[in-house]
């Protein structure tokens, strides 16, 4: 485990020494503060729009951080040749993959913590209430969803050598899953065989990221999701993280690193 934590520690160090996170965080704060200072159309429920915009920005920024940070991990190690001295040490390839995953996932967790703390402060200042349980569920589910994305991007980084192509493919696929994935079963009904079966099959194979979207719950201050379903959603995420990580380990296991 110590090897995995050592690798993860360097990934986290990289995130807070690079400017990406700070730029996205400051941009989010600026947009939200500007939005909070104006009251468009004198609407009494303007705070809901403000919360929605702020949450959308958080989703976008954390998605960008998760994909771009993960996509460059292994390719950068290969390009700078730091993979060679690293693997010349008693560090297995599985430990390296797990360390990179853990580092990226924890880094996403830290980023989320900062964003949600800001979001909580902003909405509490306008609504004079802080539904902690809602925020906890939203943030934790969001973090586990990022875990799936990180594991997926890590697998992609071992298949596509260039970080930019991997990041683009990840954004397209994740966007597709988020916006289209939930409707694939209904799309299948309109199709003929064998396409129908293929689309149905696809519907059950892809990770359903919409399970982790708690934005409406937070925006409208709805009651919390039953804790059993909440726990099942976390287990579902762990399953997909495992699938993608096993895939990454299998791809990396026999890959020549010269």
């Amino acid at each position: 485990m110590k090897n995995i934590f050592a690798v993860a520690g360097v990934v986290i160090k990289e995130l807070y020494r690079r400017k990406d996170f700070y730029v996205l965080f400051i941009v989010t704060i600026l947009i939200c503060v500007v939005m909070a200072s104006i009251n468009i159309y004198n609407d009494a429920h303007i705070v809901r729009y403000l919360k929605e915009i702020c949450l959308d920005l958080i989703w976008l920024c954390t998605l960008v951080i998760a994909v771009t940070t993960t996509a460059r991990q292994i390719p950068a190690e290969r390009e700078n040749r730091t993979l060679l001295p690293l693997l010349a040490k008693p560090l297995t390839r599985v430990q390296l993959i797990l360390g990179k995953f853990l580092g990226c996932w924890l880094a996403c967790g830290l980023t989320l913590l900062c964003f949600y703390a800001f979001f909580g402060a902003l909405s509490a200042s306008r609504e004079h209430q802080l539904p902690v349980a809602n925020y906890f569920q939203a943030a934790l589910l969001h973090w586990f969803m990022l875990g799936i994305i990180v594991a997926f991007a890590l697998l992609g980084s071992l298949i596509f050598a260039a970080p930019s192509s991997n990041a683009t493919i990840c954004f397209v696929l994740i966007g597709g899953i988020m916006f289209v994935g939930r409707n694939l079963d209904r799309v299948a009904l309109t199709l003929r065989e064998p396409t129908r079966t293929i689309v149905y099959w696809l519907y059950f194979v892809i990770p359903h990221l919409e399970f982790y979207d708690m934005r409406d719950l937070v925006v409208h201050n709805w009651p919390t999701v039953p804790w059993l379903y909440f726990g099942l959603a976390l287990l579902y995420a762990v399953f997909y993280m495992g699938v993608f990580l096993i895939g990454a380990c299998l791809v990396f296991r026999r890959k020549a690193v010269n």
Partner: protein
Amino acid sequence: MTAILRTEKLRVEYRSREMRQATKVALSGLDLEVGAGEIFGFLGPNGAGKTTTMNVLLGFVPPTSGSAYLFGIDVRQPIARQRIGYLPELTYYYKFLTAEELLRYYAKIFGLSRAEMNRRIPELLKLVELEHAAKRPIKSYSKGMQQRVGLAQALINNPDLLVLDEPTSGLDPVGRMKVREIIQRLKNEGKTVFFSSHELGEVESVCDRVAIIHQGELKAIGRVAEITGKHANLEQAFLALIGYQMQPAS
């Protein structure tokens, strides 16, 4: 002589991505044995198979056939790398880390205790003359400084065997001399050093034994004096062994 490093009929083939091209043989039945406390020079022209041999020894590339052992352990087992240090050619270490942080990172992977790290890291930074730059990010280092930090990371676990891939490549004469002094010091400490180089003068001055490889085949192995033989120096012997025909001056 106890063999620290051993290869038996090592063969590596690369399959070309282009369909019409035949399989490329990078190593063809290489037999090597390096004893404890030796400084062993591994020579060959570009593309001869030196780096491929090192890649197999370090477990980066699986051999097509044959076997390789470090300390008697098959190189495919990570534990074989517990007592080795490796300096690759042209590595750009993590720009966002300082030399001290980089060494601490690698020390953690070797499982060094905190007390051991606190003793070993300043010692190594002093050895490679980087104490003054220990807290500066690596991105601000010159090429020579990067090569020296690479040498320090290779020594972090106080290895019994050092594998150095062209350690003086791209260094100025002062940098080369410093690396040579460090290799000599390691020899005095009883370490085994296996290194590849194109600097034949340097090899002649520091190596106990050398091996010359060409097109994946071992052409000669032995003491420098044995290989030089009737030739004027190691360079002449090297050129003769790889079949280089000197053009007469017009």
